[in-house]
């Protein structure tokens, strides 16, 4: 039977926490930028202008057809040199975390956009008609009437997608970025306790995601009752 030795974990807590902070940073930035950009893409998708809506559809379909790992590899290939050039940074500057944030933001935007589009479409068409009849412009109607209702309906789905994003950030493993899982892996390899560290990391992810998804589910049920 395997002999467990959990002693490396308490000693490694500061190191693991530093990794968790990177994981959280990438998640939060990608969530905020992703939802912002996703909203724009969703509104473009619903535009009457064929070119605009085709551009948006192309963006969404492209990102949804490619594995996240491929997207990350692309961005770690292109973005670092681009950022260094644009901001005139020294060649040695560490822009890996920034690249990861850019990649996750653009990738998640495609997924958020589909949720937001469905949310906008779930708002009754009469609402826009009423807003326009009151003299609002299309932009005002969208911003003041449609989007607040749409976001209220789709918040649980957006949060569920964010929990998936939180799990997916572990894929920065393919780069030199050291997130929570990367840190756990390093400690495990260093101390020859890879089994314990992987199980510990899995347990931490499970507790966080399970608690959050249970809360989201409860919120969703409450919305259903209210509706």
């Amino acid at each position, binding site marked *: 039977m*395997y002999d467990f030795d959990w002693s490396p974990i308490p000693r490694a807590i500061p190191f693991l926490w530093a990794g968790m902070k990177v994981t959280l940073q990438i998640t939060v930035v990608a969530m905020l930028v992703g939802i912002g950009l996703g909203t724009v893409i969703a509104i473009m998708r619903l535009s009457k202008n064929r070119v605009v809506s085709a551009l948006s559809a192309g963006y969404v379909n*492209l990102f949804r*057809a*490619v*594995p*996240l*790992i*491929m997207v990350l*590899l*692309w961005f770690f*290939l292109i973005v670092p040199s681009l950022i260094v050039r644009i901001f005139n940074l020294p060649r040695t500057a560490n822009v890996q975390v920034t690249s990861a944030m850019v990649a996750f933001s653009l990738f998640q935007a495609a997924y958020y956009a589909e949720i937001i589009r469905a949310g906008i479409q779930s708002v009754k068409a009469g609402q826009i008609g009423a807003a326009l009849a009151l003299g609002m412009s299309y932009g005002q109607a969208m911003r003041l009437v449609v989007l607040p209702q749409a976001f209220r309906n789709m918040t649980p789905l957006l949060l569920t997608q964010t929990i998936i994003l939180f*799990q*997916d950030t*572990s*894929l920065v*493993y*393919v780069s030199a970025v050291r997130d929570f*899982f990367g840190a756990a*892996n390093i400690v495990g390899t260093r101390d020859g306790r*890879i*089994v314990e560290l*992987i*199980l510990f*990391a*899995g347990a931490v*992810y*499970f507790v966080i*995601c*399970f608690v959050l*998804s249970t809360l989201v589910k409860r919120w969703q049920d409450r919305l259903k009752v209210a509706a």
Partner: protein
Amino acid sequence: MDLNWHVFLEPAPSGGGATYLDWTIAGLKITVMLSMASWVIALLWGSVMGVFRTMPNRVLYGIATVYVEVFRNIPLLVQLFIWYFVMPELVPPALGNWYKQLDPVTAMFLASTLCLGFFTGARICEQVRAGIESLSKGQKAAGLALGFSLRQTYNYVLLPMAFRIIVPPLASEMVNLVKNSAVASTIGLLELAAMGRQLVDYTARAYESFTAITLLYIALNLIILGFMSWVELKARVPGFISGGGR
């Protein structure tokens, strides 16, 4: 930036007249094989668990619920590392030793297949459950009233309907599975994504390599979606407009 697509026709260092194009195809083959093998596990296991999720039996329902929650709330990458690095240490020594003596590619393929199979199975389980629950209660009652046992009711009444309804969500799970299979590159299996990185290492042609690999993934997606929409057409239940929900 000038692109050089002829690089794919240059001989690769593996010898035997193989070109980089042959390497790419070898990677594609592994991705396809891995996806198919995992799909079989996912569909069979996911269906059984999905049925359990709708059973009146509390124990079976509990088992399936725990399964879904565990496999949905741990990142795929962590699950893969558990199958590949942790499981061989925790299973009975005879099995663990057998696994460690397998040739490395077989060992990586086996771990990836099990990982993707059970990960996707958790999602299929929820689709199957949703499909069964979308049927009207009268279907089950009618089956039982006709003298079918519970098993017969599932086999002859509920499941044939449920599976036809959930073809569209199953199609997107299939696409997800192919995309998720790229995670196997992290343990060293030379599937399509890993082959992309290897091509970059050997040819120093990053843009050409990644473009080719990305296009192949898109092509795989389109093939699956095309095939599944044909299945959907064949399996459509008259009178049902939409799928079983997600």
